[in-house]
C-alpha cells in the first residue's frame, strides 16, 4: 500500500473530516479564551473530560457523549470557581485538573480497559473514528461555530471588558458560562483527533500564530481557524505517513505542526511589527524649539541608505534614534 492509497480508506476519510472540523472549532473558541487570558482553561477541561471518557467506557455508552456531559459540568464548575475566588480559585482549578485525570485513569482501570484504550482518547487516534463519531463531530462543530460567530460582538465585548459589558446591559455571567460550555464542547470534538491532553494546544497555538501577523480581532480569529485547519489536517496526514514505519498518534504531530507554523511566523511577526512602527506617521507635534545636531559627518540624501520619511514639507532621515532634517548647512533634530 502506498501513501496515496491511504486516502481511499474509510477510516482515513472519517479522520480527515474530523480533523478539519476540529481545526475550525478549537481555535474559534480558543480566541475568546486567549482574549480573556484563560489560555489554560482548555487544558483543565480536557483533563476533566478524561473522567467522562472513562465513565463512558465503564458504562458501555458512547464516550463522546459522556465526555461532553462531564466536560460541560467541569467547565461550568471551573467558571463558577473562577468567578468567586482569586488565588484560591487557581488552586481549586488545579485540583479539578488532577482529579479529572486521576479519576479517568482509575475508572478506566475499573472498567477493565487497558492503557491503550485510554491512550486513543488522550493523544488521538487515526482509526478510532466511527461513522457515528463523524456525525456527532459535525453537529457539535456546527453548534460551536454558529454560536461563536453569531454572537461575536457580544462575546468580544464580554471577553474584553466584563464591567463595561455589564453596564451595557449584557448578562456577562451567561456569556462567560456559554464560552466555558462551548470550550467543553469543542474539546470533546477535538478529543478523537488531537486527544484530550493536547487539545488545548490546538485552541491556543493557532491564535498565537495568527496574532503574529493580524492586527484586528476578526483577522486573528479567521487566521487562527485557518492555521488550525492546516495544522489538524496536515498533522493527521503526517502521522498517517509516518505510520508506515512507526506508530505515532495524530495528536503530537498536529501540535508539533502548529508549533512549527508559530515558529515560522514569528520572524514574520517581528518584521511586520517593526515595519508598522516605521510606517506609522509621526505624531503631530507642536512646534519644538529649533535643535540642530552637534556634529554630523554623514551626508543624508536620496540613496544614503537611511529611511527617508516625509514630514510635512520636508523629509526626515531616521537613524540611530534621530530624525534628521536638512536645514541649510546642518541637520535639525525633529
Amino acid at each position, binding site marked *: 500500500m502506498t501513501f496515496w492509497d491511504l486516502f481511499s480508506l474509510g477510516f482515513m476519510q472519517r479522520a480527515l473530516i474530523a480533523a478539519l472540523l476540529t481545526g475550525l472549532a478549537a481555535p474559534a473558541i480558543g480566541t475568546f479564551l486567549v482574549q480573556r487570558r484563560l489560555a489554560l482553561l482548555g487544558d483543565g477541561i480536557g483533563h476533566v473530560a478524561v473522567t467522562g471518557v472513562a465513565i463512558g467506557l465503564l458504562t458501555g455508552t458512547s464516550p463522546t457523549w459522556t465526555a461532553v456531559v462531564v466536560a460541560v459540568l467541569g467547565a461550568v464548575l471551573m467558571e463558577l470557581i473562577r468567578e468567586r475566588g482569586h488565588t484560591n480559585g487557581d488552586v481549586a482549578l488545579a485540583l479539578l485538573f488532577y482529579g479529572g485525570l486521576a479519576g479517568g485513569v482509575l475508572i478506566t482501570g475499573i472498567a477493565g480497559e487497558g492503557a491503550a484504550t485510554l491512550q486513543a482518547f488522550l493523544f488521538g487516534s487515526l482509526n478510532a473514528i466511527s461513522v457515528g463519531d463523524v456525525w456527532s463531530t459535525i453537529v457539535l462543530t456546527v453548534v460551536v461555530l454558529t454560536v461563536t460567530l453569531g454572537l461575536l*460582538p457580544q462575546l468580544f465585548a464580554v471577553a474584553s471588558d466584563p464591567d463595561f459589558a455589564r453596564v451595557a446591559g449584557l448578562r456577562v455571567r451567561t456569556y462567560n458560562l456559554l464560552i466555558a460550555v462551548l470550550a467543553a464542547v469543542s474539546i470533546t470534538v477535538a478529543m478523537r483527533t488531537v486527544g484530550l491532553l493536547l487539545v488545548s494546544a490546538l485552541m491556543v497555538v493557532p491564535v498565537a500564530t495568527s496574532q503574529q501577523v493580524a492586527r484586528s480581532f476578526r483577522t486573528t480569529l479567521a487566521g487562527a481557524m485557518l492555521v488550525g485547519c492546516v495544522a489538524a489536517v496536515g498533522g493527521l496526514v503526517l502521522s498517517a505517513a509516518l505510520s508506515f514505519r512507526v506508530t505515532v498518534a495524530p495528536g503530537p504531530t498536529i501540535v508539533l505542526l502548529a508549533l512549527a507554523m508559530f515558529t515560522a511566523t514569528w520572524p514574520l511577526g517581528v518584521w511586520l511589527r517593526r515595519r508598522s512602527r516605521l510606517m506609522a506617521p509621526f505624531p503631530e507635534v507642536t512646534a519644538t524649539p529649533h535643535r540642530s545636531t552637534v556634529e554630523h559627518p554623514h551626508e543624508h540624501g536620496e540613496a544614503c541608505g537611511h529611511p527617508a520619511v516625509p514630514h510635512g514639507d520636508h523629509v526626515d532621515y531616521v537613524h540611530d534614534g534621530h530624525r534628521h532634517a536638512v536645514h541649510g548647512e546642518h541637520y535639525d533634530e525633529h
Partner: protein
Amino acid sequence: MTTSDPSAPVVLDQVSVPIGGRPVLRDVDLTVRSGEVVTLLGPNGSGKSTLVRAVTGLLPHTRGTVRLFGTPIEQFRDWPRLGFVPQRSSAAGGVPATVREVVASGRVGRRRLLRPSGAADRVAVESALEVVGLVDRASYGVSQLSGGQQQRVLIARALAGEPDLLVLDEPTAGVDLPNQQALADALGRLKARGATILLVAHEIGPMMPLIDRSVVMRDGRVAYDGPPLTQEVASHTHHAHDHPADGPGSHDHVPHVASPLDFERRNRS
C-alpha cells in the same frame, strides 16, 4: 440636600454600600440633573469608584435607593442610555484588536442578537471616533497606542452607545496635558449635545470650564456638594460636621466597631 427632581439621570438617596462587610459608602445623597457635568473629587480610597460602581449597577447597595432616569436601579433595563468608562482598564486584551473594533463593541447594548451591524452602528462608531479625535488611528491596534490615547478609545467606546448619561472614572489619570485638553474638548462637545456627565477626576485641569458642580467625597460620605472646586481646594475641605466620638486622627466613622463581625453583632442586638 433635598432631592428636587426624582426623574433626574442619577438620584442617590441615603445610599450605603458595603464591601466585604465593611461600610464603604455611608448615607450618600447625590443628584445629577439632566445636562449637568458633575465632578466627583476626593482622596484615594474615599469611595469615588465605589459610588460610580453603585450608580452603574456593578455593586449592590444595602440601604437607600439608587434611581437612574427615575427608575430604581433594580428595575432599570434601559442600559444603553448609560455609558461607562471604567477606571484604569487597558483597552488591550489578550488578542489584538483595532481601535475601531473596540469602539464598535460600545454598540453592543443596542445591537440585537445574531444580527449584523447596521448603518446606524457604523455612523455612531465613526462619530465617536471623531469626537475623541482618533479617526486617523481607527485601524491601528489598540496596544500600539499610548495610555492617554487608549483612554480616549475607552471614552469613544462609551460614546458609541449614544448614551444620555456618561459616567467616567478617572479618565484623566496618567494623561498628559494635550491629551487632557483633547478629552475636555470631547466632553465639551457631548455637553453641548445635552449629555449628562458624572466624572471622577484627580486633575481637573482643562475641564474646569465645563464643570457645573463638584462633589467631594471623604471616608465614604459626601463632604461637599456645590459650585465647582479645583482638586487643591477640595483636598482642604473639612468635614461638614464633626464626630465627637472619634479619637483624633481616627477615620472610622462607625464608633466602637472594630470589624465587620462586630458590626453585624451590633446590628442584631
